[in-house]
């Protein structure tokens, strides 16, 4: 139950804008703003554009295929360490899949939740580097711990993302109902 102070704050939120920022703030912000990218006034010749796209696509595809081949050699999973971990890994992957389906992962605006996507990216990079060097680790138990830890951290971040999305949706609904 809210006490007197909590009630007062909740009922008077608009009255707590006591201090005013310095006038010079705006000037500093204005200087820090990046002007929007100007769109080219005239379109390229179509053949130039088509050739560039073709070249770029070929290059990107080649790099991706090369990386995939390279990674496939070094990457390992829990199942590679011991068959008894197959089910465990499956469970983790299932949980990840379920959360990503629930939040429609591909449609989530990455800039809105940048801090979480950054954490996910760092986690993936660490995991990828570790899996490349997996043959150097002789201690099986340590390997399992690291891989399990990776899955658990990933699930935790994804759950956090799901929670933030829900929270924003609720806030938006409450904002809309107030209008």
């Amino acid at each position, binding site marked *: 139950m809210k006490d007197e*102070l909590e009630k007062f*704050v909740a009922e008077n939120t608009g009255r707590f*804008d006591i201090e005013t920022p310095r006038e010079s*703030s*705006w000037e500093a912000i204005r200087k820090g*703003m990046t002007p*929007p990218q100007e769109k080219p006034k005239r379109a390229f010749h179509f053949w130039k554009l088509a050739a560039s796209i073709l070249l770029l696509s070929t290059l990107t595809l080649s790099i991706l295929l090369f990386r995939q081949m390279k990674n496939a050699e070094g990457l390992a999973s829990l199942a590679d360490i011991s068959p008894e971990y197959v089910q465990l890994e499956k469970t983790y992957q299932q949980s990840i899949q379920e959360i990503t389906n629930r939040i429609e992962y591909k449609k989530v*605006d990455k*800039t809105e939740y940048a801090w979480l996507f950054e954490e996910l990216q760092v986690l993936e990079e660490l995991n990828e580097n570790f899996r490349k060097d997996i043959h150097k680790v002789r201690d099986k138990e340590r390997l399992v711990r690291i891989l399990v830890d990776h899955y658990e951290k990933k699930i935790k971040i994804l759950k956090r993302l799901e929670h933030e999305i829900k929270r924003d949706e609720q806030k*938006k609904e409450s904002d809309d109902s107030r209008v």
Partner: protein
Amino acid sequence: MWVEQLKKGDETAAYNLYQAYSSNMYNTLIRITGDSDLSQDLLQEAFIKAFNAIDSYRQKSSFGSWLKRIVVNTALEQIRRKKLDFTPIEEDVVQEIDEELSLNPKVIHEHIKKLPEGCRTVLSLFLFEDFSHKEIAEKLNISESTSKTQYQRAKSLLRIKLSKAYYER
């Protein structure tokens, strides 16, 4: 409308948005950090971040909520860089006070600024920004129970100050 104009590069729209939201965001930062000068820098940093990322604002939430999240995260990034001091709660602080309180926004604001840093941040996030203790715990890398006790500590300290302010009127 200002948001759409800003997306097209209209500086006046940016200025209008700044005028509309800067005071609220500035006071939010002061309540979280307790430092007016630092809040001034963080305010500029947050507005620059928001304006430069305006194309990514998809209007899923109101502009104010979107901007507030950037502002709060900017403050929390700053806070995480230094280790916050969460002084344990003293017994004499938790006692319930049944005295009258000076419930005046300006007085409350001034006393929030003077609260010890760890509990002030928790109080500001919980009381003013609608964060749950679970969310505060995750953001500040503390336990949920620490968040709860620090909130009680901040509230008790604040109540003592507000009670004194009431009788000194």
